[in-house]
């Protein structure tokens, strides 16, 4: 059964690609069906694990065997991976079905389905791995699929650039992850998770020399692993690829860039909790980067106009939440937020896709508005997504997001306090930009000049049914699963797949604190209503008085420009210099070309001796002879 879960998507991918000529319907149905089967099996595994405590490790094949390095292909089912496979296969199955409708006008459907399935396979490889190398395989594999899917519309130059950017920025992160893996192997002689985690405690005080200074071993490893996580999960300074990745088709954004792939970084940190727990520095770093990202992305999302980019920044921001949850040691809460976020963010993206579909590929929310009566169904679903995201009481986001803030409060440390402040403030921003998106899209005046209002019509059922399932998940997943993930019995569920060095104190939280976040969320709704719908002059006023700030946010803190100036251009210049000045003007000029010129020059000179006149030769002979005689006499 475990094998089927992992390999069904691969089979689906292959038959889609190889069976391109069998028609679109064949590829759509076969790949969707296989993924649905895989999803059902995952749920059974999750259920078995949760109820009967059945977990296991299945070795498939020996992969690399070099010296003391021994790595297997394997499937490792533990509570953590069982949660992940449910999220991955379930969202993937829904996205597959949705894509049948969304991509109905695209000529390359089999290829699209094939890539989606391949992605699912890679992601499953990543989460069920029992060693770092297979994880790295999946890690790069999902990066590849993300590259292929972002660049799916390969004729668009912007899509190609976004795809390359995604791959390369991820490679920078992977570079960190790879170094972390090297360090682990170098110090512990194994890449297997459980073997490694058994060795950690003994080595927690070890230092290593890095360049010229001594560093704590565990801290160094964690920092490098976290660089990998930052790349994949689009955390601040390595986040730039995620908004650009929205060039890909919307189902891709929902599956890869919201629900699954980008959470791989969070998964890595949680998976490596036995390492991170021994390094307070690394945990603080995780929390700080998470907080910066959460704030940064939310602030940028406030002023963007592209519907998908707003949601992309929102994803970035929510990933920040997950990271700072992990950073304060509340790994299970991070996983819970990952779980609920997968539902409502996929819902929002697919809903946005539905809106884009309705408006025929229009993505600017400035060109929408006033259509809620025409597409009430999509509007309702988006409303559910928005409520869940903002943490409206008793929807899924409410449980997970508030739990993060509460656990930070319980932590009762400096970093915990910062997390509380940032968490609450970001929740306010989240709710503002979410309502702005919602209001601008569905209410106010109808602003689209290309298509008349009458032409708009609701999306087909093949697209709306997956949305309904996701909506149900967004509403109930928090309430239903909160006991399992973060409730009293959570330690029983997680078993030893998550490691806590210090338990959380179960002190009562005062009621006013519990009510703080939800009330802010509730208050922000009328605020959003006023400034975005009722009285636009307020907003214009703010914009005018804070113009530099507005520009700063609109240009995403100028980070792309910063990279362009500090990295891209110098590297290009360096390459050109090395080529033209290094290879051609130095090595060749003084090397082979120089030598051959020199030899030509010398032989030219030498050939001048051969004049052909007998008196020249006689003269030279005479000089030679006299020199020889002189030499002999003097000797």
């Amino acid at each position, binding site marked *: 059964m475990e094998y089927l879960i992992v390999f069904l998507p691969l089979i689906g991918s292959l038959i889609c690609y190889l069976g391109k000529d069998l028609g679109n319907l064949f590829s759509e149905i076969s790949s969707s069906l296989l993924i649905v089967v895989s999803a059902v099996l995952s749920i059974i595994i999750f259920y078995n694990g949760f109820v009967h405590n059945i977990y296991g490790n299945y070795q498939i*094949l020996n*992969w*690399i065997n070099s010296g003391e390095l021994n790595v297997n292909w394997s499937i490792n089912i533990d509570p953590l991976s069982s949660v992940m496979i449910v999220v991955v296969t379930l969202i993937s199955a829904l996205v597959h079905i949705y894509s049948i409708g969304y991509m109905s006008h695209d000529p390359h459907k089999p290829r699209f389905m094939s890539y989606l399935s391949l992605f699912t396979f890679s992601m499953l490889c990543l989460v069920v791995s029992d060693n770092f190398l297979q994880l790295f395989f999946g890690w*790069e594999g999902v990066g590849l699929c993300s590259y292929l899917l972002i660049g799916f519309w*390969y004729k668009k130059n912007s899509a190609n650039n976004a795809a390359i950017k995604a791959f390369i920025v991820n490679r920078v992160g992977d570079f960190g992850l*790879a170094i972390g893996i090297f360090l682990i192997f170098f110090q512990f002689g194994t890449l297997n998770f459980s073997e490694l985690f058994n060795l950690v405690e003994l080595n927690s005080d070890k230092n290593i020399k890095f360049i010229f200074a001594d560093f704590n071993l565990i801290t160094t490893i964690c920092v490098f692993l976290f660089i990998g996580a930052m790349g994949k999960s689009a955390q601040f300074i390595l986040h730039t690829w995620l908004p650009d990745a929205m060039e890909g088709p919307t189902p891709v954004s929902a599956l890869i860039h919201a629900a699954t792939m980008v959470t791989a970084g969070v998964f890595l940190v949680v998976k490596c909790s036995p390492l991170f727990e021994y390094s307070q520095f690394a945990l603080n770093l995780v929390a700080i980067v998470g907080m910066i990202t959460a704030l940064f992305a939310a602030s940028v999302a406030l002023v963007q106009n592209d519907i998908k980019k707003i949601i992309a920044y929102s994803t970035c921001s929510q990933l920040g939440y997950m990271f700072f949850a992990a950073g304060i040691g509340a790994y299970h809460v991070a996983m819970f937020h990952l779980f609920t976020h997968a539902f409502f963010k996929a819902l929002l993206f697919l809903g946005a896709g539905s809106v884009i579909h309705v408006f025929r590929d229009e993505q600017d929310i400035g060109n929408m508005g006033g259509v809620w009566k025409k597409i009430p169904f999509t509007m309702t679903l988006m409303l559910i997504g928005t409520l869940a995201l903002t943490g409206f009481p008793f929807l899924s986001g409410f449980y997970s997001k508030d739990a993060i803030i509460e656990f930070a409060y319980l932590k009762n440390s400096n970093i915990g306090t910062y997390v509380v402040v940032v968490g609450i403030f970001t929740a306010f921003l989240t709710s503002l930009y979410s309502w702005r998106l919602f209001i601008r899209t569905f209410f106010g005046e109808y602003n689209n000049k290309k298509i008349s209002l009458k032409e708009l019509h609701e999306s087909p059922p093949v697209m709306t049914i997956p949305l309904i399932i996701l909506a149900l998940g967004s509403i109930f997943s928090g309430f239903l699963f909160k006991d399992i993930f973060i409730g009293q019995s959570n330690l029983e569920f997680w078993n030893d797949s998550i490691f806590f060095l210090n338990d959380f104190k179960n002190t009562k939280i005062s009621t006013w604190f519990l009510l703080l976040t939800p009330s802010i969320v509730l208050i922000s709704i009328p605020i959003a209503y006023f400034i975005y719908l009722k009285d636009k002059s307020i907003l214009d006023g703010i914009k005018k008085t804070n113009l530099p700030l507005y520009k700063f946010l609109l240009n995403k803190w100028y980070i792309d420009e910063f990279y362009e100036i500090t990295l891209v251009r110098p590297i290009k210049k*360096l390459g050109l210099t090395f080529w033209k000045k*290094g290879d051609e003007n130095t090595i060749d000029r003084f*090397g082979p070309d120089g030598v*051959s010129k020199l030899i030509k020059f010398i032989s030219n000179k030498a050939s001048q001796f051969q004049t052909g006149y007998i008196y020249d030769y006689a003269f030279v002979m005479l000089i030679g002879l006299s020199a020889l005689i002189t030499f002999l006499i003097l000797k």
Partner: protein
Amino acid sequence: MDFPILSTIIFLPLVGAFFILLSKSKDNKSAKYISVFTTLINLILSLFLWYSFDNQIVEFQFVEEKVWIENFFKYKLGIDGISVLFIVLTSFITQICVISCINSIKLRIKEFLIALLVLETFMLGVFCSLDLLLFYLFFEAGLIPMFLIIGVWGGARRVYSAFKFFLYTLLGSVLMLVAIITIFWLTGSTDVTEIYQIKIPEQYQTILWLAFFSSFAVKLPMWPVHTWLPDAHVEAPTAGSVILAAILLKMAGYGFLRFSIGMFPLASEFFVPLVYVLSLIAIIYTSLIALMQDDMKKLIAYSSVGHMGFVTLGVFTFTTQGIEGGIYQMISHGLISAALFLCVGVLYDRMNSRMINDYGGVVSILPKFSLLFIIFVLGGLGLPGTSGFIGEFLVLLGAFKKNFLVAVIASIGVVLAAAYMLWLAKKVIFGEVKNDKVKILKDVNYSEGFVLSILVILTLFFGFYPEPIFNTISPSVNNLIDVYQFEINSKISNIN
């Protein structure tokens, strides 16, 4: 074993070449058949050799020994786990080259095939020789057919490139010849196995190591003596580029393992910093240059220099992972770079252009070709699941044990590789079709598709299941490391 299988493998292509020479000059068909047939037999024999190779034994196997010149020069062949793989690689790649060039070379096909087969003999000889002088003969003789292949069937600047190639490599080799003579003078033998036993004094090791190094460094090529490679690749015909990248470069890597480390362990240890620095420069410097190329062949050529930088880095870590990774990287680069040059050849045959800007949107017109090309591009950037990953990963793992900083800097090369390879894919494969000529191109034909598909299968197979290669090389590699460690330790204990 009584049957001289190594000699058979080595000289069979020569016999084939002889028959091609005898075949009627008008009738190119028989020349083609003979060449395909000969290389096929050779491939089967090499695979049989690999199959019957006993990977439990550390000593050289299938040894053949004949005295050629009394007290001086023996004709001695033999293989260990490292060389057997290169023999298989050589016969495989030659086979592929013959298949691919039969259709693409229009001019003097007969002579071309003769040059190719003669070259195969010399290359195989290099990997089998256990006598220094014999090795030198094969090593140098290989220059001649390659020189002709570039000089006669090359592009517009072929003469310049051919001479550059020839002079560069010859210059390094002269020093190697001097070193071989010195070794004979010191030990009274040119037999490698005997020299392994007789320890060469340390003061000589350094200078001899440098002499061998100068030859191998040019051939590999290492920075800063790499500039012949891009020119040679650009001008060479497709089959020439493939052989050059897939095998000729590997001769130097093999030389490092067999001769530099085996005969001069102390000097090898002494020069590790030099090799590291040159390898790192090669990796970073050439990757940056590759980023700026507008000629596909040049881009792949520069990427080859970078990839070979990983090889030297790995070999000189003297760790199991490093050396095995280095060898793996050579094999994998042999497959992937060969495939990439073949892909460029496919485009060049149709469009007569190597310039990246002449292409774009190829995927809409040639979907099958594009799929194959993309897989090789991914192999080139070392994606896990392709053979390219395992080599690079093990090399970095090995380097990490020796020096943290070196491994970190080398890892940057992996990021850059992704940049230039994807950039190549984007400009050539994706985007809108800009050039009208591209619109009328035909997709890969049967033989091209066949050859490239085999390479794809191998690239992926060895990415997922590298066991066959590791099983073959690891006894020899471990032996190499043991001997090396023994030498270093005995030196240290002498000092104490």
